[in-house]
C-alpha cells in the first residue's frame, strides 16, 4: 500500500532534488558534464519508477491538506496515478532522459557553467511536467502549469545574449499568459460553482449529473483558454515557431512531446466536464481542425527546418484537440503519445543535421543521405510516421483521430483534417527531398552525429515502429467507416508523390505552384497576419497604457510628494530667520510666552 504513495512521490521528487542540488551547489553546476550526469541519473531513476508503475498498472490517489477551510480543506496537494497519468509519466520521463543524453553531445561546445545551468533547467522542467501529470486537482495542475511555462521561458531564452532568443522567450511567456489568465479564472469560478478543485470529485459529479450547468459554459471556455495558450491553438499559436530559438533538444522535449501537450492532457483529463457543455466540445473540435490546417499551410512555405517542425507540431496539436472535441479523447491521447515519440525523433534528427551543416536553412542543405545515412534513415522513419504511413504508429493514431472526427463532425472539420493530412505528407517530404536528396552540396564535411546523439535517435525510431506494430496487431476495432484506412493512406501517398514530383523530379516548379495559389501563398508566408495583430495590440495598447501609467506615476503621484516637500523646505527656509543666535531675543520670547499664559489663566479660566 505504501508503495503506491512513495513511488509516485519518488518519481516526482528525484528530478526536484536534482534541480535543488544543481541550483544550490555551484561548484557542481559549474562542471557542466557532472551536472548533466546528476540530472540524467535522477531522470533515469524517475523513468524506472514510472515504468514500474505503468507495467504494474498502479492506481492511486493521495492528497494532503494545503489550504484550510471550514468543512474540510479548501485545497489539497497530492498525486493521482491512473491510466492517463501513468502513460504520460513514461512518455515525459523517457523523452526527457533521451533529450538529456542527446544534449550532452549536442551542447558539447557550450561552456561548462552554461551547460550546468541547462541541466538545472532540464531537471526543473522534468519535475514540473511530472508534477503537472500527477496533479489530482486543478489548482495544483495550475501551479505546475505555470512552472513548465517558466521552464519554457528559461530554456527558450537559454542563449540569453541573443536578442532573438530573449524576445522569443518573452513572447512565449506573454502569449501563454493570456491563456493562463483564462485558466485560473475558470478554475476559481469552477470552484465557486462546485466547491472543489479535485479531479476525482469533479469527474464523479459530472458523471452523476450533479454539476450545476448555469454558467458552466463560460467556465469551461475560460479553462479551455489555458489549453489554447499552452497547446498553441489558433490564435495563440504564434509563440511556438518563435520558440525554436532555443536549443534543438529543448524544442524536441518541450515544444513537441511534453509541455505543449499539457493542454491536450488537461482537456482529456477534464473531458467529462467539457462533455457537459456540448457547444464547447464543438468549438474545441473546430478550432483544432482549423489550427491543424492553418499551420500545415504555413509549414509548406517555411525554409527553416525547425520552423517546419514547429508548424507541424501546431498542426498535430490541432489534430489532438479536434479528437478531444469530437468526443474521442482516447484517440487524441493516443495521437499525443505517438506524436510525442516521432516528433521528438524528428527534432533530434533535425538537430543532428543542423549540428553537421551549421545552418537551419533547408535551401542551403542537400544530398545529405550519403553523408549522414543513419540520420537520414531515422528522419525518414519519423516523417513516415508523421505522414501517417502504416505500419508506423502515426498511421494508427491519425486514423483514430480521423475516425473520431468523422463520427461527430463529418463536415468541414473532417475535410480540414483530411486536407491537413495531405499537406503534412507534402511538406515533410519536401523537407526530406531538399535536405537529404537532390544534387546541391552544402559544403563542409557533414557526417553522422556521435553515439550520444545517435542512440536516442535509434531508440525513438524503434519505439515508433514497435508501437506501430503493436497498435496494428492489437487492432482495438478500427474507428470509423471502412473507407477511412484507404483514404488516409491515399492522402499520405498523394502528398509524398506531389512532393517528389515538385522537389525531387522537378516536374512541377515550386514557384509556379506558389503563384497558382497566389493569395494563399502570400498569406501563409506572412503568417496570416496573426503575429502582426499581437504586435499591434502590444504596441498600441499595452505600451501606450504603460506610458500613461508611467506619466501618472512620475507627475501625479511623485508630483504630490515633490510639491509637499518643496513647501516644507521653503517654509523652513523662511522660519530659519527667527533664530538670531542672540539669547536676549530668546529671553524676550520666553517672557512674552509667560505673559500670554498669565493672560490666558486670568481671562479665560473664569
Amino acid at each position, binding site marked *: 500500500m505504501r508503495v503506491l504513495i512513495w513511488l509516485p512521490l519518488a518519481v516526482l521528487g528525484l528530478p526536484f532534488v536534482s534541480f535543488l542540488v544543481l541550483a544550490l551547489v555551484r561548484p557542481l553546476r559549474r562542471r557542466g558534464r557532472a551536472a548533466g550526469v546528476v540530472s540524467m541519473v535522477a531522470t533515469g531513476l524517475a523513468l524506472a519508477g514510472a515504468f514500474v508503475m505503468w507495467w504494474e498498472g498502479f492506481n492511486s490517489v493521495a492528497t494532503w491538506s494545503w489550504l484550510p477551510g471550514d468543512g474540510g480543506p479548501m485545497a489539497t496537494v497530492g498525486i493521482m496515478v491512473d491510466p492517463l497519468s501513468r502513460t504520460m509519466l513514461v512518455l515525459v520521463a523517457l523523452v526527457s532522459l533521451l533529450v538529456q543524453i542527446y544534449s550532452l553531445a549536442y551542447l558539447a561546445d557550450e561552456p561548462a557553467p552554461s551547460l550546468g545551468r541547462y541541466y538545472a533547467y532540464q531537471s526543473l522542467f522534468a519535475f514540473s511536467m511530472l508534477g503537472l501529470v500527477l496533479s489530482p486537482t486543478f489548482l495544483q495542475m495550475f501551479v505546475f502549469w505555470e512552472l513548465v511555462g517558466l521552464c519554457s521561458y528559461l530554456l527558450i531564452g537559454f542563449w540569453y545574449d541573443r536578442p532573438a532568443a530573449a524576445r522569443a522567450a518573452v513572447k512565449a511567456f506573454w502569449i501563454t499568459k493570456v491563456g493562463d489568465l483564462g485558466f485560473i479564472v475558470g478554475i476559481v469560478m469552477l470552484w465557486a460553482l462546485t466547491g472543489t478543485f479535485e479531479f476525482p470529485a469533479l469527474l464523479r459529479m459530472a458523471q452523476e449529473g450533479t454539476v450545476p450547468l448555469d454558467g458552466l459554459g463560460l467556465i469551461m471556455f475560460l479553462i479551455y483558454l489555458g489549453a489554447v495558450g499552452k497547446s498553441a491553438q489558433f490564435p495563440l499559436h504564434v509563440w511556438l515557431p518563435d520558440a525554436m530559438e532555443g536549443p534543438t533538444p529543448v524544442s524536441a522535449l518541450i515544444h513537441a512531446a511534453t509541455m505543449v501537450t499539457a493542454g491536450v492532457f488537461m482537456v482529456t483529463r477534464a473531458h467529462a466536464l467539457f462533455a457537459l457543455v456540448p457547444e464547447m466540445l464543438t468549438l474545441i473540435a473546430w478550432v483544432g481542425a482549423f489550427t491543424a490546417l492553418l499551420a500545415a499551410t504555413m509549414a509548406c512555405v517555411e525554409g527553416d527546418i525547425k520552423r517546419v517542425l514547429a508548424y507541424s507540431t501546431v498542426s498535430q496539436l490541432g489534430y489532438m484537440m479536434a479528437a478531444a472535441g469530437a468526443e474521442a479523447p482516447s484517440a487524441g491521447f493516443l495521437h499525443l503519445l505517438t506524436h510525442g515519440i516521432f516528433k521528438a525523433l524528428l527534432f533530434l534528427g533535425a538537430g543532428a543535421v543542423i549540428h553537421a551543416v551549421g545552418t537551419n536553412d533547408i535551401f542551403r542543405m542537400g544530398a545529405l543521405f550519403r553523408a549522414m545515412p543513419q540520420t537520414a534513415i531515422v528522419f525518414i522513419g519519423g516523417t513516415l510516421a508523421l505522414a501517417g504511413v502504416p505500419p508506423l504508429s502515426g498511421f494508427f493514431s491519425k486514423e483514430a483521430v480521423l475516425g473520431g472526427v468523422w463520427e461527430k463532425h463529418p463536415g468541414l472539420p473532417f475535410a480540414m483534417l483530411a486536407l491537413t493530412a495531405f499537406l503534412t505528407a507534402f511538406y515533410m517530404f519536401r523537407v526530406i527531398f531538399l535536405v537529404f536528396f537532390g544534387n546541391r552540396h552544402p559544403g563542409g564535411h557533414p557526417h553522422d552525429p556521435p553515439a550520444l546523439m545517435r542512440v536516442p535517435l535509434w531508440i525513438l525510431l524503434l519505439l515508433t515502429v514497435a508501437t506501430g506494430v503493436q497498435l496494428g496487431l492489437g487492432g482495438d476495432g478500427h474507428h470509423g467507416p471502412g473507407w477511412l484506412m484507404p483514404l488516409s493512406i491515399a492522402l499520405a501517398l498523394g502528398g509524398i508523390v506531389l512532393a517528389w514530383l515538385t522537389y525531387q523530379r522537378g516536374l512541377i516548379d515550386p514557384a509556379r505552384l506558389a503563384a497558382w495559389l497566389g493569395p494563399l501563398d502570400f498569406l501563409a508566408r506572412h503568417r496570416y497576419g496573426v503575429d502582426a495583430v499581437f504586435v499591434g495590440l502590444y504596441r498600441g495598447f499595452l505600451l501606450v497604457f504603460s506610458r500613461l501609467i508611467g506619466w501618472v506615476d512620475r507627475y501625479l503621484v511623485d508630483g504630490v510628494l515633490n510639491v509637499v516637500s518643496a513647501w516644507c523646505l521653503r517654509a523652513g527656509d523662511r522660519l530659519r530667520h527667527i533664530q538670531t543666535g542672540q539669547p*536676549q531675543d530668546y529671553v*524676550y520670547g520666553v517672557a512674552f510666552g509667560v505673559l500670554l499664559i498669565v493672560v490666558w489663566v486670568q481671562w479665560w479660566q473664569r
Partner: protein
Amino acid sequence: MPLHAYLVLAALVFVIGLFGVLTRRNAIGILLGIELMLNAVNINLVAFSRFSGDVAGIVFALFTIAITVAEVAVGLAIVIMIFRVRRTVEADHLDLLRG
C-alpha cells in the same frame, strides 16, 4: 506696611531686572539684570514668610541666595571665557548659534 506693598516692590524690581536683561548690550549688564530678578523673588519669599508666620519662606530664600551665588560664578566664568576667545562681551556680536 501692608503685604501688597512688598509684593509691588518685588514686582517692580523683577520687571526692571527683566528690562535690563532684554536691553543691555554688555553681557555683564545682562547678568546684573538676572541678579535683580532673583532678588525680587527673594523679596517675595521673605514678605510672605513674615506675614504668614511660616519660616519656610525664609529657608527657601536662603536656598535661592546660595543658588544665585553659584549661578553668578558660573556665568561670570563663561563671560570671561567668551572674552578670551572672541575679544568682546557685547551681546550683539555673540550670535554664533544663528540659524
